[in-house]
């Protein structure tokens, strides 16, 4: 199974990190590495993920992450199948 790399920007909020990691694991992905930093009022996280089985689609996961309240953007970083959903800053708070 191939490793997928994603990048998530999200607003600081209580529980935001737990919420995101929970979504990723519950949707069938193993987090193999993670880096995190911040930029002003937002956190930026890059993760490497391994799907639990062949039915997991990274595009679906990106959409599932994008709908988490407080997420500003979520992107698949591996070229052709890149997905990004910019959410206006006002809505992320």
């Amino acid at each position: 199974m191939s490793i997928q790399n994603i990048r998530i920007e999200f607003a600081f909020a209580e529980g935001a990190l737990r919420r995101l990691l929970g979504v990723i694991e519950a949707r069938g992905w193993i987090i193999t590495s993670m880096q995190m930093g911040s930029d002003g009022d937002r956190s930026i996280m890059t993760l490497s993920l391994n799907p639990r089985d062949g039915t997991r689609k990274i595009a679906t996961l990106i959409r599932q992450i994008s709908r988490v309240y407080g997420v500003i953007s979520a992107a698949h970083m591996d070229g052709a199948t890149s997905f990004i959903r910019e959410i206006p800053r006002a809505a992320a708070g």
Partner: protein
Amino acid sequence: MSTAPASIAEQPQTAVRTGAELVVDTLERLGVESVFGYPGGAIMPLYDALARGKVKHYLVRHEQAAAFAADAAGRVTGRAGVCLATSGPGATNLITGIANAFMDSVPLVAITGQVPQTLMGTDAFQEIDIFGLTLPIVKHSVVIRDPADIPAALAEAFAIAEGGRPGPVLVDLPKDVQQASCARWDEPMEGDDLRPSPSAESLAEADKLIAAAKKPLLYLGGGVARSNATDLVRDISERTGIPAVATLQGLGVLPVEHPNFVGMLGMHGGRAANTAVQESDLLIVIGARFDDRATGHLASFAPHASVVHIDTDAAEFGKLRHAHSTMCGDLKRCLRTIEFTPGDISEWQAETRRLKEEHAPRYDAPGNGVFAPELLKKLSERAGDSFVAACDVGQHQMWVAQHCRFSRPQAHLTSGGLGAMGYGLPAAIGAKVAEPDATVVCVSGDGSFMMNIQELATLRRYNIPVKIVLLDNSMLGLVRQWQELFFEGNYSEVDLSDNPDFVEVANSFGIEAFSVDLKSQVDGAIDRLLAAKGPILAHVRIDPEENVWPLVPPGKSNADMMESKW
């Protein structure tokens, strides 16, 4: 993410208010008329304020019932239902109800008391991390740590719960925040409507697919009700003549007698609907998510069909079934932009109508005993357009779905995604409180009913005129059916023949009740139920060996249906 702003009345900041008073003020400003809950230590300041406010509180007898009642109120009205509980066990008792609302995309706001902030993280008495426990089953959640944030945070909780794809929002309120006095607070801000509009390409693709299809089918899910798009879908169906099938949550979008309605698809769906789906060359999926109970074996589901998928939640696109055209946004807005001009589909219409006629359910069951499907069909038809069913989970739930007539999807309250026994009675209470003119019937089974039987006390306390049809097969019937069919008749822990006398139980709660044993008593029983002014229970004994038909065995294709032997 696409939250429509919840409208909120203005409040002048003239007096000092406690956090608890601000909660009540804000609920009132948001137009909340009733809440369901149960008090305890960490939420006592809020109960103190509630007693002085205008919001009506319904005291249930178990917090799970508060969440289920609020869920039902949310389904019926489209506005978030509200439930309250104390910290610790009160909060954990809400969890099943919150999960139920999450699985079925129902707007709900759950407010929990929490220990004071200085005690949070110390394993204090009744301290539970309810915020952490519910993270996977909420649309959003917040711990309010400053009373000045209360009006804005609560208004935002409602906006999130009700906007876009609805869902539950948990608001955890530490006791010190409820008690603190506050002279100035942040006012709620109007949110932007962030719902995307469908793209021109996806629209063009959808129009093309619909125009080219020989066997198009509308596939209607719970999203239609949640988006209040029923009238529009009816319009489209009537204007175009495209036949329609519905999921469990989509029942009632088209009434069962509508000539374009083929039936419910899925595990306990009709042969007509499942056959139509298998033959269709285009599924126009509106507010549905390809749940495995609807699709059966996914790889053999609708093998000839292209898919146009319309939903408020883009995360559903391609999750389980590839879509050739996707449209994300407010369902009504999406539906209005599609042209819906099919070619000549008259042969297909005739074919689906023939299927519906040929596979119409039969009600001529042998014997003198009550045939539950017939009772339910008659009851729903006699109650008419005001009929609302709140079901529990099991065989009786499937009979309601298969045989009742619903005038609208909000008339069918059923725990679909979670399948939670115990939903029926509290849901009936929530529905009747939210819609006093409806004829609310709780259809329950002898197993499910015992999971929230204590709510008979709530019915009695507020004299809520819910009609209960308790279908008693002395069995965990649906489990027994699976053991008969898929576990070689090895009946393990399904016998409930030591049930209490339900008529006596109801009477002891002060509720009118009577028994029905024979087919010949059914009409009289319906008369009595419909004539009752207060709460009433009909205890209906049915054959323990009755099964729900048809049935697609788990993991099999919807083409492989098992049917009744008679």
